[in-house]
């Protein structure tokens, strides 16, 4: 699918790694890293969403200046 026009962003040649990566994801360390990433990112996103909620009483405070 990829054409060959594109020069990679940092001129690296990264495309022989997929086998290593698949092995890593399948490993216990990889699975643990993935699960941890998912848990932590879910928590971070939820915390941010919660902090952005406005209390109903604040909607009745006048904006007057």
């Amino acid at each position, binding site marked *: 699918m990829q054409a060959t026009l594109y020069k990679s962003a940092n001129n690296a040649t990264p495309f022989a790694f997929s086998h290593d990566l698949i092995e890593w994801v399948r490993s216990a360390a990889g699975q643990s890293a993935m*699960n941890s990433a998912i848990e932590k990112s879910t928590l971070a996103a939820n915390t941010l969403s919660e902090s952005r909620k406005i209390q109903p009483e604040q909607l*009745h405070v*006048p904006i007057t*200046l």
Partner: protein
Amino acid sequence: MSEYSVIPYNIQNLVECLSQKSLATNEQVKGKLHTRYFEDYFLALNAKTVVIEPNYVDHDFLEDYAAYYVSCFEKYCRYTTRLHFFDIDFTDADFTQILISPSAAIQPSDLNNAYLGFVIVKCLPITIIGRTCLKTYPDDNGRRSFPILREYSTNLFGIELKVQSLAFQEQDTVVAACATSALWSCFQGTGKLFQHSIPSPVEITKVATDHVPENLPGNSARALPNSGLTATQMALAVRDVGLEPYIIGTPDQYSLNSALYAYLRCHIPLILTIHLVNVNGGNEQLMGGHGVAITGFSLGNNTPVPFGPSGFLLRASRIDKIYAHDDQVGPFAKMEHIVATRYYLKTSWQASGIVEARPWFLLLPLYHKIRIPFDLIHGAAIMLDAIIEPARAIVMPTMSRVEWDIHLTTVNDFKSDILKNMKGMIPESEVASALTVDLPRFMWRVTALIDNSPNLDLLFDATGIAQHKLLVHVVESGQELSSILRALSKNIVNTKNAQVEAVFDWFKQN
């Protein structure tokens, strides 16, 4: 016949002109924050000449006049004065030649090229700055961005003049307080963008005050004269023009930057409410709540600020200043992020101590089809980044960490960007596919950047249903991230996030 005049621009001439054309004294004009603001602003725009157009009938002021001033015992003037600003020198005699002579040294097109915009002066005491459309600060090689600009055409004695701006005006504290002025400026942008009629300040105040505020001791129930609006009343005014009010709290700098960038990039002006606090030594005095219309931002930080435990890098976190129509200061007024013992915005407001503007919430006037909120897509991007990052560190340790650019866009803006800016930089197959694919009108565009170059573009339907998979298209500008995602997609555990699952589904199938 209108007795126009032409004067060289300097702040003394402007002060004199403002006091002569209003009921304010010279001293009162000098004491206004607007005057101090205009002094710096016109210096930055290199203003040289002002054409004074008397007896100008301004639609917005006429509406306000008919609704309130006409029934006052005092006889207020319904005409205004319009001041036109130019960055070239010319005299009264030169201007007469422009009007009558085909061989004038300065032609009407030269005037248009030198046009900086106009300020309407209302013949009122104190609150004299009416509709104002001025050019913005220069973009400084892309650092400053004002995505909400629209074209304003004016006709000065037959000469067509155009300026890219968003209209501003000072509250008159009678038919409009700050909240009304901020709403009015926002509607100037959304009216063009979403095709709704643009109400005058008095119309906005009347609609908003149809709702009697809940906290009557703290709020005046009077519609006119108006002393301010609550968030609920502002939301009602947004609903009245056919848009959906959406409120986002802004407890910190990251929350504010991420949300305002995401919506401003889609040309949607938004209202920021703040608490103004006078901090004098150890004493804090709440001055009150204030509303401004956000019109732009400056990406002045060289690097993004990491967020959360995974150190997520969002492009919007590079914002060091925002620009706002603050009706008590001026158009495109700077508000600078300050992180000291407490986070606040530094503004031009003045008091006995330091005036801290503490962000409270954003109010967005959204088209009804923009249904998917920023947080949903932001959450998905954080998770994708957290999954990609350990993999990147293992297989591509020399590659820079991904920086994410998340903003709302339209199908037209997206395709124009591909055609104008990305053709030749990304594979031809990707260009062809991006330009011809069927896409929804509004989308969340999530661009993964490596060393400031786009590597991957994920497009999510912003008009859909939150629990559904919303990914509609992917542009693989580079190969690095798509290679990682393809490798991970066959082995990834359940993320319980529909949008992240949608991305992995895409790479499994394509």
